[in-house]
């Protein structure tokens, strides 16, 4: 994934710009938070000007929209602050408008922002994955269900969980006087935006309201603290596992090495199997597309890593 490590970045320091990409109606403005320079995937703060109107339509990439202030109307339903919408690629949503304006966060996860006017789904659309919820009004805070877990006082509302990648999108909060004295890194990319409040990390200092990061795997972060508490929105691309430690000076290679070494202890049988000849193309019987012989980067255990084959269709028995 070709997004650089962007941390920390505070979007309050930059102005909104008009969205000029083809297909998008007038009245949408954005601030770019991070961009994948290969596939155009990106995360942006967006502003819908009062009176914004968008006809029914779809995007070529799946996207997620979170409303921070104001409201939008999709079809007949009004979605206010705390509303979260996950729209799979090719799913046409009803007309969207914002009579009084709104601000939000938008995540185009696997391609550049696109909007194609359409009142019907693309033939490859997976409408069953469409999800909409008002997370402020209709969801409860829970403790993080990771093991090992973050310290008490950090809570989440899981907005979306991808059963295949284990990537997830979540609201999170830290209570006033939250502290966690360790250093963490993950095997996944992680991004977050502070909707409200400031927190502190030993590497990067304070991250205030409007603060954002896109953190690539194996980067040390922590210790953590928040004097008055925070509310944020986070997202990972695959499973978030907390590799905790207390050495402030380790680098990415050392962290990666340690994570791999820990895998031997955590999943010894799987580690052995995957590293045996011929087992580098595992196929998931639950999924028809995107298996290891298809569009996912994989290797043959021959040192030539990260390549793809043309997608092959699996035959159904």
């Amino acid at each position, binding site marked *: 994934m070709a997004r*650089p*490590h*962007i*941390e*920390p*970045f505070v979007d309050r320091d930059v102005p909104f710009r008009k969205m*000029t*990409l*083809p297909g998008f109606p007038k009245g949408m403005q954005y601030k*770019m938070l*991070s*961009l994948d*320079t290969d*596939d*155009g995937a*990106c995360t942006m703060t967006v502003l819908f000007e009062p009176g914004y109107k968008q006809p029914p339509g779809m995007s*070529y*990439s*799946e996207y997620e929209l979170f409303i921070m202030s104001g409201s939008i109307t999709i079809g007949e339903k009004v979605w206010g602050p705390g509303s979260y919408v996950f729209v*799979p*690629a*090719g799913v046409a949503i009803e007309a969207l408008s914002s009579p009084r304006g709104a601000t939000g966060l938008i995540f185009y*996860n*696997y*391609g*550049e922002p*696109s909007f194609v006017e359409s009142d019907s789904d*693309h033939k*490859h*659309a*997976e409408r069953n994955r469409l999800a909409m919820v008002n997370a402020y009004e209709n969801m409860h805070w829970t*403790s993080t269900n990771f*093991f*090992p*877990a*973050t*310290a*008490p006082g950090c809570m989440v509302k899981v907005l979306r969980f991808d059963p295949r990648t284990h990537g997830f999108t979540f609201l999170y909060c830290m209570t006033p006087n939250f502290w*966690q*004295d*360790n250093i963490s890194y993950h095997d996944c990319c992680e991004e977050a935006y502070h909707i409200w409040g400031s927190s502190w990390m*030993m*590497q*990067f*200092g304070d991250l205030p309201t409007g603060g954002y990061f896109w953190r*690539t795997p194996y*980067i*040390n972060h922590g*210790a953590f603290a928040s004097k008055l508490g925070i509310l944020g929105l986070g997202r990972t691309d695959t499973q978030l596992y907390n590799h*905790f430690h*207390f*050495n*402030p*000076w380790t*680098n*990415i290679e050392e962290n990666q090495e340690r994570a791999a070494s820990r895998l031997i202890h955590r999943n010894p049988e799987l580690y052995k199997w995957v590293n045996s000849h011929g087992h580098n193309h595992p196929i998931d019987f639950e999924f028809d*597309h*995107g298996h290891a012989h298809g569009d996912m980067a994989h290797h043959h255990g021959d040192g030539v890593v990260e390549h793809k084959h043309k997608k092959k269709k699996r035959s159904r028995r």
Partner: protein
Amino acid sequence: MKAIPHKRSREVEDWLRKEEVEQRKRYRKIVAEQEALSPKRDKWIAQFLQRIQTRGVHTHYDQMRKVRPEEIPVKPKRKFRVVF
């Protein structure tokens, strides 16, 4: 299906190029700001290494353990980076 294959228009390619240039500027600014934070960060690290010996280091949720003095890591000679 995470994304539907499609052809990008020239306008989209131009937009992406401009955003990439902007992102490079943002990245350089972040690196410079984080470099300037080094003296403060060194103090924070020293305080952290003290705290984990007295109050302890978090291992899971509310579980903590005190780190023994001989376990405290020594700063390596190589350049220390926090942005990669």
